[in-house]
């Protein structure tokens, strides 16, 4: 079997990107990636042969993130997403506003919708691979993806409304 390093290292940049989009803190994201890689290495020989290595790593990362998020929630450390301030950036064009705020809008979504949009839209996972990471049937993934995109649109519309109120 190939050396784990040679298989894992090419995937690190995209793991860091996914982790950062989930936790939105550079150091915390790298901690999450490090935990993911440690776990993958310690289970390297338990991994199913011929399995999708990338999907496996993203699944580990996501589960670690969910566990950590739950820990934070117990300690009351997180800000509920309804309360999080919506950063508004003055912009002359709708499209420009959307572009700048896509990541901020993503922050307002529940974790599952966030992960879906990231895996499919940013990491180019097939719908089947994304379904495996989320532990959902592929049909469910399609309808949840549709709902997640609708939610993104709604959040941005609300953001614009807030911005207009602020400008008045």
């Amino acid at each position: 079997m190939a050396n784990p390093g040679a298989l894992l290292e090419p995937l690190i940049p995209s793991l860091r990107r996914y982790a950062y989009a989930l936790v939105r803190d550079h150091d915390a994201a790298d901690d999450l990636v490090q935990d993911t890689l440690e776990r993958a290495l310690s289970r390297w020989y338990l991994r199913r042969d011929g399995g999708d290595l990338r999907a496996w790593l993203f699944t580990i990362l996501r589960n670690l993130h969910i566990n950590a998020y739950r820990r934070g929630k117990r300690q009351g450390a997180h800000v509920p997403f309804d309360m999080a301030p919506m950063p508004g950036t003055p912009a002359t064009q709708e499209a420009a506003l959307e572009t700048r705020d896509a990541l901020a809008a993503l922050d307002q979504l529940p974790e599952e919708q966030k992960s879906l949009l990231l895996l499919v839209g940013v990491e180019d996972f097939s719908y089947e691979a994304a379904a495996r990471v989320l532990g959902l049937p592929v049909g469910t993934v399609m309808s949840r993806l549709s709902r997640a995109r609708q939610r993104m649109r709604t959040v941005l519309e609300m953001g614009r409304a807030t911005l207009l109120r602020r400008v008045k």
Partner: protein
Amino acid sequence: MNAPPGFPAAMPIGEDELQAYVDRRLSGERLALVEAHLAAHPDLGQQVAADRRLRDALRGQLEAKANEPVPARLRIANIRAGKRARLGGSLLRIAAVVAIFVAGAGGGWYAATLQNPASTRAASTATVAQGATAAYRTFVVEVAHPVEVDARQEAHLVQWLSRRLGRPLVAPDLAKFGYRLMGGRLLPADSGQAAQFMYDDQSGKRITVYVRQAEGGNETAFRFRREGDTSSFAWIDQGFGFAVTGMAAREELLPIAEAVYRGFERVEETPAPRRN
């Protein structure tokens, strides 16, 4: 077929195709059909165009992150060196766990005959599920000490928990569901005790099997209970409450609960209770 020009008889446009269109994963005939449909329905066309802009914007905003040089601490060689220094031979540890598993599966150890436990308040499936959920939430997020005694000492763990609960226990084998025993711990439950066995799958997802004294409780069928994102199947059997708990769908948890039920049933070495 006599479809009018421009309206070929075809499958209607699906939600999944609209998503695939947003992701630029459609081609050929279906792409042309979706484009025609969007042109004919401007409202939908605008939504889909907005979805595409957002998708591309998100990608653009995150692109720089993937282009950053990988920090030294994330180099595989450095992670492995760190692990070796901290743990010493992770492969040896895995081998040990596997060996215990094999020994356990082949040997079928049973706990010694036990004395009656101190009497406890009658418990319902609801209190069993509540206790199991609270214990799950407390320990499933634990990174450093998820279990009190780990799977390497499974025989000791099972013997110890059996003695404290006053009932022969097993750590059920859930390998066919992809779950591996991590270990277990003893917990307080009202005036008695409870045992928690924790399992994880290869992606790190955790479930627990929880057993507590429930003297006087009536035998029940499986009851499903959900609290937030945590689900449990709980039941009472022969004076003990059982729960299988996890962040998992009902359909995933049910066969595991059934396997656990059968596992404990065997250990009792008494006639199986009637189930309807």
